[in-house]
């Protein structure tokens, strides 16, 4: 304020320098115009203090000039205040707060204020002078009026245009500056030549019109500022020239009159120049506006093409930014998305790309938050960092446009311009359209992307379901509950049911028709009861087109509609045929075990009865004089009881677990070892074929039991072929098992017999032909070896038994070759004790053929007798463990070894049961040989026993 006050005071005093004593007024008066300019440039809020400062300075200056004449000073102050108020009111009314005198209206308002306003205020001033100082009113009023008029026309535009236009526009274009400098130089030269008399005859006073041409030039090229500047120079030169009064254009006698002429001349020129300049710049602005509108339209057109073509959001943003830069010529444009209430810059285009993000913000932020366009112009001042930054980059205007979509603000489009005048209403509207298009494009692309995502998710979901349905072995299915129509069945249906899914879709009844007749009604009832039961869980049989059966475990669950009514049924069906088979065979083997136990228990009591019968028969036989037919009847009864007792013994043996003497043995060797014996066993019309695996098939097994299995199966096969046929014995490897297959071409087994063939006493051979224990024994042995049995039989075609035994990795334990035995190591003498007559004779003959000296004995007592005679020669005792006379093999061995401790002992028995689950323990020099043993094993055992230890 001090500056304002002192400047005003200085201007005031400057005016007094030209004080005209006659008029009691100064023809040069810049002070009032200065105040008007300051008030136009300053916001309304500051006016009171400015007015106060000016008033104080005015009063002080007037008092000082009038020798402290209060009436005069106050009158002058009042006149000045009225003048200022009128001028500012008129100009602001027309030109608004941003008045720049570049519009015709503003200039006209200025002229009006300068002419009419000052005329009014001059009345107050002149009246004051006339009343207080006695000055002539007419002269005083005229002087006051013209000086104030000229001041307003010159000083106010000069200050306002310079402050408002700023300096950098000239700095930006040096050609413009050079032109301005040239014009002003010409202007000054002309002023100097015209108004500064050179003396002598040379005078250019007649050329004052030159300035008229120059004013036109200045007005057209340099605008209001140029005119204002030039006019101040002209006024200074002209007033000086008029004051000097020699050779100047205005050469009137009276200096006051000369001054008046000059003032009118300058005022007219200034008004003309200012009007011309305002008119030109107004036209130029209109052209600029049109140009910008055109530019915006081109931008929209280009951006719309991008909009149509862009496939992705990135493409769209990049394309629109490029359109703004290339077509629109905007130096910087960027798009920001509103994320978490913050505007994130996502795409920057134009020369600023990638511009400093701080350039961002500003109007774009406002637009994003308010949803309305926001603009900042070059003439707007502002201290925000973004604007200082923008100005430093040369930007003079910024526009923020909201990107609105469906009532939601996606973000904002921010456009910058170097032109302070950019972004007028039309341009904002056009660019607003662009922003709307951009928002629409973004929305469309996002919707499309969402659609694609949904499509992809749906496809992925379908793919997952397809893989699930196609790869899971269970059948997924879904039916319409009311119509029974099958809506879906997974491909596993074809595998389990043996029918195509299409056939199921075509005829839904085929689903139930395929179910085994015995299970069909149950399944139908369970399916119908679903609404009440809430689902079913059934096992049933399915008959495939080829007649084979599959067991199916099927679960059905209801799907209800919103009303709770069942309208669909979904389910899973699993093929449980294998499980059923396993369950079946487990039940079978449990049954067999139970039967075995039962048979064993019965056998014991049965045997007791037989023993009692035999004793009674014996007792009865001791009576003398019995009729002969009674005698023979008793004998027959005894024989029958004996036979029955033999049977019960087998049964007791079967029902007990036999002791396993396992070793690693080759199944091939076992078969070939038995082949000779089998051939004698088979009839001539049943040739034996062997098909053996090329490699040894090793298993951990009891050799005697394996022989038993082969023997029993072979005998069975033979009996199945009363009319002759072929017996094939095969060995092969199957996974972790080694297999023995015995195939005959006989009658086959009736399907109804198949489940019972392993039961003890089940026989089809007819009374007295078989015991029914052959296959039961096979079953027991295979079970003890943790093996498996499979039977394939077809009536009239034959039967195949396949025994699987766990294969073993260990090497076969050395067993002597089956056919040829090497000669004895040394001559030896053997004592063979065996109660069975036939077996004893056979064994003795076998050993004698090998060169041994053999003494037979039929019992322990008998053996003692033999020992008494031949004791010293005997090297080895081969004895049955159980013998009829009460002296068992073990006891016999103990007694004989007391006499000859070096005696070797082989114990043999057929009753290889292990009652307490203990293994057979043998003393040194004793060994065990199961009975019956094949000849080569007997020889091998003898040879091993005789080897020196």
């Amino acid at each position, binding site marked *: 304020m001090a500056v304002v006050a002192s400047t005003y005071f200085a201007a005031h005093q400057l005016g007094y320098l030209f004080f005209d004593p006659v008029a009691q007024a100064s023809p040069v008066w810049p002070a009032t115009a200065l105040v008007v300019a300051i008030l136009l440039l300053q916001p309304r809020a500051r006016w009171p203090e400015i007015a106060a400062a000016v008033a104080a300075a005015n009063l002080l200056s007037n008092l000082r000039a009038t020798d402290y004449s209060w009436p005069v000073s106050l009158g002058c102050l009042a006149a000045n205040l009225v003048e200022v108020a009128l001028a500012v009111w008129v100009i602001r009314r027309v030109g608004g707060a941003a008045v720049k005198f570049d519009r015709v209206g503003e200039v006209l308002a200025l002229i009006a204020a300068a002419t009419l306003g000052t005329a009014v205020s001059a009345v107050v001033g002149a009246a004051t002078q006339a009343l207080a100082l006695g000055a002539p009113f007419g002269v005083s009023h005229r002087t006051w009026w013209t000086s104030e008029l000229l001041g307003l026309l010159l000083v106010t535009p000069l200050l306002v245009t310079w402050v408002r236009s700023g300096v950098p526009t000239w700095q930006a274009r040096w050609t413009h500056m050079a032109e301005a400098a040239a014009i002003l130089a010409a202007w000054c030269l002309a002023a100097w030549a015209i108004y500064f008399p050179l003396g002598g005859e040379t005078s250019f006073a007649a050329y004052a019109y030159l300035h008229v041409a120059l004013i036109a030039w200045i007005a057209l090229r340099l605008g209001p500022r140029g005119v204002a500047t030039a006019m101040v120079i002209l006024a200074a030169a002209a007033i000086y020239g008029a004051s000097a009064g020699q050779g100047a254009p205005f050469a009137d006698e009276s200096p006051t009159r000369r001054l008046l002429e000059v003032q009118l001349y300058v005022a007219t020129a200034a008004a003309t120049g200012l009007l011309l300049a305002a008119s030109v710049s107004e036209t130029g602005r209109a052209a600029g506006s049109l140009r910008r509108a055109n530019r915006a339209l081109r931008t929209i057109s280009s951006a719309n093409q991008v909009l149509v073509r862009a496939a992705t959001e990135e493409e769209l943003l990049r394309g629109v930014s490029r359109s703004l830069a290339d077509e629109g010529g905007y130096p910087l444009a960027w798009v920001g998305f509103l994320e978490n209430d913050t505007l994130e810059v996502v795409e920057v285009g134009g020369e600023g790309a990638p511009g400093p993000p701080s350039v961002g913000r500003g109007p774009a932020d406002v637009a994003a938050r308010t949803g309305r366009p926001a603009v900042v112009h070059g003439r707007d001042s502002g201290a925000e960092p973004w604007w200082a930054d923008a100005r430093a980059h040369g930007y003079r205007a910024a526009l923020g446009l909201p990107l609105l979509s469906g009532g939601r603000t996606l973000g904002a489009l921010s456009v910058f311009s170097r032109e302070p005048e950019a972004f007028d209403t039309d341009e904002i509207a056009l660019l607003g359209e662009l922003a709307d298009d951009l928002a629409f494009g973004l929305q469309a692309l996002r919707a499309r992307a969402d659609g694609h995502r949904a499509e992809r998710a749906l496809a992925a979901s379908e793919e997952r379901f397809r893989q699930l349905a196609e790869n899971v072995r269970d059948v997924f299915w879904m039916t319409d509950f009311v119509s029974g129509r099958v809506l879906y069945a997974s491909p596993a249906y074809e595998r389990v049911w043996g029918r195509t899914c299409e056939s199921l879709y075509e005829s839904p009844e085929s689903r139930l028709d395929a179910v085994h007749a015995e299970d069909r009604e149950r399944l139908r009832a369970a399916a119908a009861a679903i609404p009440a039961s809430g689902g079913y869980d059934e096992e049933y049989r399915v008959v495939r087109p080829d007649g084979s059966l599959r067991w199916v475990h099927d679960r059905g669950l209801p799907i209800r509609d919103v009303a709770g009514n069942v309208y669909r049924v979904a389910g899973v069906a699993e093929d449980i045929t294998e499980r059923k088979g396993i369950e079946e065979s487990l039940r079978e083997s449990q049954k067999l075990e139970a039967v075995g136990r039962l048979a064993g228990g019965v056998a014991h009591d049965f*045997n*007791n009865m037989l*023993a009692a019968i*035999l004793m009674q028969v*014996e*007792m009865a036989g001791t009576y003398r004089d019995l009729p002969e037919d009674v005698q023979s009847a008793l004998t027959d009864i005894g024989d029958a009881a004996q036979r029955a007792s033999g049977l019960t013994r087998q049964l007791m043996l079967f029902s007990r677990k036999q002791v396993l003497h396992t070793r690693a043995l080759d199944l091939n060797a076992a078969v070939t070892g038995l082949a000779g014996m089998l051939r004698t066993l088979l009839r001539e019309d049943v040739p034996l074929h062997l098909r053996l695996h090329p490699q040894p098939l090793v298993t951990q097994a009891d050799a005697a039991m394996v022989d038993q299995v082969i023997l029993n199966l072979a005998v069975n096969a033979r009996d199945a072929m009363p009319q002759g046929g072929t017996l094939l014995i095969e060995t092969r490897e199957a996974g972790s098992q080694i297999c023995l297959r015995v195939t005959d071409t006989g009658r086959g087994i009736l399907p109804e017999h198949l489940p019972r063939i392993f039961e003890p006493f089940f026989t089809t051979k007819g009374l007295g032909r078989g015991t029914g224990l052959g296959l039961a024994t096979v079953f027991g042995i295979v079970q003890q070896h943790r093996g498996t049995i499979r039977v394939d039989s077809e009536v009239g075609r034959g039967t195949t038994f396949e025994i699987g035994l766990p294969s073993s990795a260990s090497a076969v334990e050395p067993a002597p070759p089956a056919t040829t035995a090497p000669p004895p190591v040394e001559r030896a003498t053997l004592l063979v004790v065996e109660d069975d007559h036939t077996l004893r004779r056979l064994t003795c003959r076998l050993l004698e053929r090998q060169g041994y000296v053999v003494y037979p004995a039929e019992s322990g007592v008998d053996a003692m007798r033999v020992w008494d005679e031949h004791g010293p020669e005997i090297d080895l005792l081969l004895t049955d463990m159980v013998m009829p006379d009460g002296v068992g093999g073990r006891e016999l061995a103990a007694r004989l070894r007391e006499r000859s401790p070096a005696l070797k002992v082989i114990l043999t028995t057929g*009753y290889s049961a*292990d009652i307490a689950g203990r293994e057979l323990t043998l003393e040194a020099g004793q060994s065990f040989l199961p009975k019956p043993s094949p000849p080569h094993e007997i020889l091998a055992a003898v040879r091993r026993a005789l080897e020196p230890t």
Partner: protein
Amino acid sequence: MTAPAVPFGGKHVLFVDDETALLVPMRRYFERLGAAVTVAQARESAAALITPGGFDLIVLDLMLGGDERDGIEVLQAARERSGDTPVIVLSGLVTPELQRELSDLGAEAVLTKPQTLQELARVARTLMGLPEAP
């Protein structure tokens, strides 16, 4: 030389068997040969009868009431209380294991059922040290 008309004269034999049908012929046969016969049909009654020197021979059915262990307990009782008395064990099925166990427990003879009375008498004579029958 002729054998005495009653070869088992004065000898006292205990038959242990749960089967009456078997006890009847055995008892009659041995009594006919002059022996005094006592019978028992269960483990408890048999064990109660055995006293030191009470019997000259015990004929024991191993399976009493379906359990071999019962017969074995009677055998053990006989060995404890009357160590000198020979025991003949009868069993429907004699396995090597059983044979060994019974020998270990001191059974003089193990016979398989059925057995003829003649054979039973022969073994009994041998064990009691009586002369052979003609």
